[in-house]
């Protein structure tokens, strides 16, 4: 006789946990993401209580400009004598915020467009997907740069523009899932029972497409972080004196050959944060694809 345990299907959460337990790289990636989030959150919390650790990120001190890393300034100081570590800690919350909100915006648009195109099909699908094709021909980063530069760079404009430009992948994916799922028995029976399209989409189809949508969301975060860093670098990111990883490098490029620490450390932060999100997202994708 088959024991009941062996026929109990594995829950999605259980499958994801098993995948992460088997993959040390993905586990480290998740730990790094948590660490970055704690550091960013902790710094924001402390500075809201008036405590600046290790230093005030905007405190200039010209006697201490361009100091290499030392016990008193772990990651050195910039051309105005500001502590690089403090600025990077404050920049971390900007990067993570940009990543999360931009993904929320792009997910919102992508899921709605993809769901409508995939569920209704026909003319609507044709029009929406041709628009997606047209958007895919644009060089994404150039489009973001143009829009942000013309609108004026601010945190809100940047996340909205990145979100508005990067939903095409999600829309295509959601449409594909909907095309498959709308032919399933349970969706057909829901339709026969006379349920409204809205109910079928939100109750029956969307939950079953949740896993791949989650994966694109996680993989979208580092894309947004890298876009913001690139914008900051070109001078169209979040504006000074607010520190971001990108604008520390942009300010430091003038001192390229004298102060390598202004380039190296913030870039490493961008690299490690994005890499962790990509690795975690990839492990999540494999967990999602290994169902059936």
């Amino acid at each position, binding site marked *: 006789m088959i024991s009941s345990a062996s026929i109990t299907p594995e829950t999605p959460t259980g499958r994801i946990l098993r995948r992460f337990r088997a993959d040390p790289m993905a586990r480290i990636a998740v730990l790094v993401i948590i660490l970055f989030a704690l550091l960013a959150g902790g710094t924001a919390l402390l500075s809201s209580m008036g405590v600046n650790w290790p230093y005030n990120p905007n405190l200039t001190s010209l006697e201490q400009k361009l100091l290499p890393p030392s016990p008193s300034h772990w990651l050195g100081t910039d051309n105005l004598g500001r502590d690089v570590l403090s600025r990077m800690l404050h920049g971390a919350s900007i990067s993570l915020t940009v990543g999360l909100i931009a993904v929320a915006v792009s997910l919102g648009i992508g899921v709605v467009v993809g769901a409508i195109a995939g569920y209704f099909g026909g003319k609507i699908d044709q029009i929406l997907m*041709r628009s997606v094709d047209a958007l895919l*021909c644009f*060089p994404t980063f150039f489009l973001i*740069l*143009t*829009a942000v530069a013309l609108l004026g760079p601010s945190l809100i404009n940047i996340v909205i523009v990145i979100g508005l430009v990067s939903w095409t992948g999600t829309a295509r994916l959601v449409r594909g899932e909907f095309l498959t799922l709308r032919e399933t028995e349970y969706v057909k029976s829901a339709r026969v029972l006379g349920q409204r399209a809205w109910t079928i989409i939100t109750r029956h189809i969307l939950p079953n497409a949740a896993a791949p949508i989650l994966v694109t969301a996680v993989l979208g975060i580092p894309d947004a972080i890298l876009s913001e860093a690139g914008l900051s670098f070109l001078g169209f990111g979040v504006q000074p004196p607010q520190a971001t990883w990108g604008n520390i490098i942009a300010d430091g490029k003038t001192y390229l*050959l004298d102060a390598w620490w202004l380039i190296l450390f913030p870039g490493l932060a961008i690299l490690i944060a994005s890499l962790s999100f990509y690795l975690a997202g990839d492990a999540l994708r494999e967990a999602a694809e290994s169902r059936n």
Partner: protein
Amino acid sequence: MTSFLLRRLGLTVVLLFIISIISFFIVTLTPGSPYPWGELNPKISAEVKANFRKKFHLDRPLPEQYAFIMRDLFTGDLRSIKDDRPVMTRIMERLPATLALNLAAILISLSFGTLLGVYAARNAGRWQDMAGSFVAFLFIALPSFWISYLLAIVLVKGFHVPILGTHSYGIEFPNVFAAGLDTLWHLLLPATVLAIGGIAAQSRYLRATMIGTLREDYIRTARSKGLAEETVLYKHALRNSIRPLVTGIGMLLPALISGAVIVENIFAYPGMGRLGYEAVLERDYPTLVALNFVVAALVLLGNLLSDLLYAAVDPRVRLE
């Protein structure tokens, strides 16, 4: 074949139309002054402003402005707000450098991406595969401006080699060959930085397809015939996994041109990415609209070429 080309051509026209509308409205609906001298400059008389508005059709309603821009784009009369030169001339000046940079980047992406992808696929599930995935994601996560600067620090400080522009200044080359090598060297660095993301993407796509191909019967047959593993991998398996490499070329192009905005800026390379960045800084609307249009046309052309190429390398594919 003919009907395929005709349909694709129709689709291309539709897409270009949508693209031109999107790029037109992005540059015109955003707030800000189109005047190169600033909205409130007291030294500019109302008459000059009115003439300027008339010249660039800014006094007309938006749909008419769009029609004027498109007409001028096709007749070649579209002029840059910045220096009053024809926009198409400004773009065509940059086109050879852009094409050279992108072709070099595509070649680097495809060759190294293939090596990395095949290496990961033949070791699927082992630590080499994990290392390959790690390297691929590392490449995608590398901020291009950061790696450019690190390379610049190492090369300029360590080896004292020039890296900016398309050729070394102030040096007389003994012959064309030496000058060509110099140009090639100046192309190599930006192209490599630009290709890093492409290498990663190609290797990931190829790995996924190749793992499937390696399970096929004809691979087992090839191996049991006693063929060398390299022959099996690169001749039998790679040929049947070629799709991501070929379709990848079309998908790489927009990403490359995006990346070029940053990379050309750092290496002072006179390509279209830098032209776009300058046009953004100068709020040069005609150049921005035209540039988006030309880039989109290049991308669509690239897509079409990669589809044709795909049909050429894979006899199972028919273009209907």
